[in-house]
């Protein structure tokens, strides 16, 4: 039988994964493991070269249930990786939009030494947001994809 990255132990009802941090970043492995905290106890251990994730389901399960769980975990690993990459790709757009939305409304000075509180009124809701400067890399990225 082909060896995969997981090992099923039917007697202790656990499934363990050996994952190389060279293949998936540690944050991705942890995020994938996080998705399974509802299904059972999740243990993450390891070191620089290998990370071991063990899932101990809450309920009694069969070998095929454990196998299913193992594939689900692998799907989640890929999914978490893709989500992370997509998020990175859009980080600049996200930051730019959030800055433009939030910065004009600088919170008031809440210094206790200045009574009464000098509350700066927020910009009116209908005001046009200030110029939004997008980084050149983002502009060329879109041009490349669409035009």
């Amino acid at each position, binding site marked *: 039988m082909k060896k995969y990255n997981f090992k099923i132990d039917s007697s202790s009802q656990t499934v363990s994964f050996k994952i190389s941090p060279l293949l998936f970043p540690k944050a991705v492995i942890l995020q994938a493991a996080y998705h399974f905290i509802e299904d059972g106890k999740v243990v993450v251990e390891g070191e620089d070269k290998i990370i071991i994730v063990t899932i101990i389901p809450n309920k009694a399960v069969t070998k095929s249930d454990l196998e299913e769980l193992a594939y689900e975990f692998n799907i989640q690993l890929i999914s978490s990786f893709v989500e992370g990459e*997509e998020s990175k790709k859009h980080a600049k757009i996200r930051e730019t939009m959030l800055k433009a939305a939030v910065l004009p*409304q600088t919170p008031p000075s809440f210094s*206790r030494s200045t009574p009464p509180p000098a509350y700066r009124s927020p910009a009116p809701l209908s005001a046009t*947001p200030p110029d*939004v400067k997008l980084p050149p890399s983002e*502009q060329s*990225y879109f041009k490349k994809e*669409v035009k």
Partner: protein
Amino acid sequence: MLGSIGQKTQLINEFFPFPLGSGILVTTRHGGWNILSNDEYQLLKSGKINEGSELFKKLEEAGIILTPKGMRKAVNDLRIQNNYLYLPTAYHVIAVNNQCNFNCIYCHPDATPRENEMKIETAKKVLDFIFSIPIQKGCQIIIEGGEPLLKWDLVKFIFEEGRKRAKEKNLQFRFSFTTNLSLMTDKIAKEIQEMGITPCVSFDGPKDLHNKHRPFVGGEGSYDKVIYWFKKLKNDYKINVHAIPVITNISLQYGPEAIIDEYLKIGEKIIFFKPFRASGRALSSFQELKMEPEDFYNFWKKGVEYCLALNKKGIEVRELDASYFITNILSPQRRSMCHRRPCGAGFSILSYNYDGTINGCDATRGQGFLDLGHVDKDDYPAIRSRALPLATLSPDLTPICSSCPFMAYCRHCLSDVYGRENGLYPKIPRSFECHWQKAAFEYLFKKISEDSKDAQILLSWRQDHPEFSNRSQSYVQTTS
């Protein structure tokens, strides 16, 4: 002007797909959305969309494609959604006591028959604090307990004094109180009528259910007394009294129809299927009250379907969570502070316990974890700066939420999360609120895209100001 982008440059915004029937729902961080066919979705993914095509227009309107115009709208939507984080607190809940003649199974401040009430000096300091806040238009004071009618004289004092101070500052003033109604008298009813205020009553539905949830301290049911006074206040005194039920596992056994019918009997047209919060006494009876998210979702959905069916027969009635969810889908405005993320605790709302402790929200009052200070020693700037870390409860900063297609529309109750997880951050994979709300949003998006009559009714439930346009104007127009 978005000069640095240039008029002819567009970007594809970060988007979150979700399979919906035969199409794909695509949403964005700022809440723009549209439902695409599979072919349209493939074009979006490939980025090969002809400028000027119908698809381009749809995506631009939803802010999925960012043109200079679309970028301005998306940024403005984000700004409107988060504006409350920058506004001074205008909603204040004062607990005049923690004494109560009821022994409700889920009581979140864990009120008891013991005397523990606010002194008049403390009430004055609370009002000093509230009116030190640089509110611009008006403020709202809600009185809670315990049972406020046990301290009716103090309630009247806060009302009179609050109204006077608001007038001096040229502010609008709204006042209300929650009550179990059991200690109502004709004298108090007359005074409420003269004050022109709106009491809010906890009423859980059918007699048997209400009595199980909300017995007197001695164990007898309170239903008859509540119904008697509710009708009398409404019919004889013409007082605009409202009711809210709390939903627990016990409620699920009765079904939503029974609760809606009870509400219709007392003339109420808005029903809020509000799940109990895991705080106070609810924690000691948690196993009995606990609902599985799927069970609560099915209950809620059945309730919404029942409301829709009644509307089609000409009986106007709506469920409030559905109403706010629809609003969040259609508009960036967040009128309900419980339907924001982060919620309004510490920003839009402050709560004052009978001993003068200032808390981020009335729901967390009994938990003690969100005590922000005290009226004896703290001023508003100090309280507000202590609340600032709560802004990190934004879905953008919560694992899993930050890539969820429904992140711009959902809510999370701080108090409930704390009760279930003993911490501020929801553990999303096992979050009750996340599980049922995901199903609810899928249901609502399907409804407004599939059934035109139901869609029309649901769209009419929106709660925002008419000046706010739909996020997906063309889509909503075609479905309605």
